[in-house]
């Protein structure tokens, strides 16, 4: 299997503060790859480096066997699309207009879209189930709808890798599952490599084919959910009491928070 992302001895620092320390790992094509870790572990920095927004200080980063720095901006945009965490747009673009912006790396200078691009955008809107919103201005949408619009924009970009920064952070329970199901569908039907940065270990356990657990800029564990999400590793990494058992809905781990003052621990 081809490697979508390959990272070797990568380090990154903001002035004196080293955020990522000597990381080496790779993500095969077609994975549902989820990066988890405590606040300040370097998750978002890692994602920005893969997206080409931040330049790594040391080490190598290859996207589909080609060094990242060999990619022209537009070529990279045709390979990787990013769905931001909180996309606030103060300008009343319609949903269609915003989704069409995903075509820009494929267009000439002035970015005039052809009918063909409109077809691709409509297709992306159908996949994300937002066709009925096509002519609505962005500022009239709910958080969940907005998220799907930005995912449609990323699909419209026709990348091979799609990066999502905390896609479920501001969504209610139903929408969390919807978004993750959608990404699962895109992975299966279009063959996207999906890379997600998330705080939600339970969603990660349910959907991830591989998880990367980061702490203080270093890899704690990389592997299948059941190997990464062990009580011992998580308690050490997050520095809190946890309960990990098998989820009643499937063969994947379930992580439960244990309060210091409320509830009973097993064996009490």
């Amino acid at each position, binding site marked *: 299997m081809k490697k979508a992302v390959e990272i070797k001895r990568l380090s990154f620092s903001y002035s004196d503060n080293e955020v990522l320390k000597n990381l080496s790992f790779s993500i095969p094509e077609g994975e549902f790859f989820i990066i988890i870790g405590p606040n300040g572990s370097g998750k978002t920095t890692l994602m920005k480096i893969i997206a080409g*927004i931040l330049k790594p200080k040391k080490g190598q980063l290859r996207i589909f066997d080609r060094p990242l720095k060999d990619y022209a901006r537009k070529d990279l945009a045709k390979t990787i699309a990013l769905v931001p965490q909180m996309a606030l747009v103060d*300008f009343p673009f319609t949903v269609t207009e915003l989704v069409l912006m995903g075509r820009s790396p494929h267009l000439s200078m*002035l970015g005039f879209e052809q009918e063909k691009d409109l077809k691709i955008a409509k297709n992306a809107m159908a996949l994300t189930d937002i066709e009925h919103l096509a002519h609505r201005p962005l500022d009239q949408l709910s958080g969940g709808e907005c998220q799907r619009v930005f995912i449609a924009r990323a699909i419209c970009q026709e990348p091979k890798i799609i990066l999502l920064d905390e896609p479920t952070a501001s969504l209610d329970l139903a929408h969390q599952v919807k978004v993750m199901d959608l990404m699962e569908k895109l992975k299966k039907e279009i063959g996207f490599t999906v890379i997600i940065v998330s705080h939600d270990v339970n969603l990660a356990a349910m959907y991830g084919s591989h998880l990367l657990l980061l702490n203080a800029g270093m890899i704690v564990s990389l592997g299948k959910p059941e190997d990464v999400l062990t009580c011992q590793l998580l308690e050490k990494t997050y520095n809190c009491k946890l309960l990990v058992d098998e989820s009643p809905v499937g063969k994947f781990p379930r992580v439960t928070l244990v309060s210091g003052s409320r509830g009973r621990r097993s064996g009490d």
Partner: protein
Amino acid sequence: MNNKSPFVLKRIVWVSSLLLLLLFMTMVIGISMGSTGNGVKAVLQSLFGKGGEDSMLDTIVWQIRFPRVLLAALVGATLSLGGLVFQALLRNPLAEPYILGISGGSAIGAIIGILAGLSRFPGVSFTAFLGSIATLVLLLIMSSGQSILKKNTLLLSGVMVNAFCSAIIMFLVSMTQDSRLHNIIFWLMGDLSMSDIGQVGILALTLLPCFIILFRYSHSMNLLLMGNEMAQTMGVNIKRVTTILLVTTSFMVSSTVCHCGLLGFVGLVMPHLLRLILGPDHRVLVPACILGGGAYMVICDLLARTLTQQGEMPAGVITAMIGAPLFIYLLKRSKR
């Protein structure tokens, strides 16, 4: 429907044709009306070279009114477009061209030029341009490195630069006591009366390439509204685009400021009004602001020339009196 031609292009052509017609009509009206009450017909004849007999009218039309109306159109186009660009760069639909202190800077340059007794062109133009470039450099140093890409840094630096510029302008004004004072004050309020066909022609030739450059980057402006990081992942070279937009716009604004003084609200009202009508796509808005902004300024100048019986008032008074209430109305409406 023709499936081959891009649909955005069709919209641009439609909108531009309509606004071009509007601009043309306002310019004809602007040239027809004035203190000597000649009819539209006589002026039109003179404009298209069929007058012949009335050489007095020819002189008024060609040497006084035509350059003035053309200057008004150019100034309106430049300020509206400048406002549009700054709003895209700052990702704030209510930003105005003066917010970065660029026009304040060129005003300082221009006042120093006037005090030094330089001619309006190229002397004062040049000092105004130096002033705007100086503020731009100051701005870039204040928000240097990575942080220039963050809009709040740019906005706050701009507000500070602007406050500093106002202080210097006031200082210069209070130090001046002779007849030049009246000159400066009138100019500060925005004044289009000093127009000469040669100078306006040169101004038009300087502005045209700026308009073309900004249209070239109109789609990048759309993407910039998504935030710098998002724009970057869609293939935009942020540093290059931001620099080109800032330098082109400040060059454009300073070239007009030295001709017309400080005209407020044109850069605020026109982009906002046009965005409400046409939507936020910059590929449509850039040509619309050039043509619509031009028409708006021609009307404002016409009002400034004809509203009072004794003499005329600075056009800046009109733009502020129309602009500010309209702006408040638009603001309230858009929040609904």
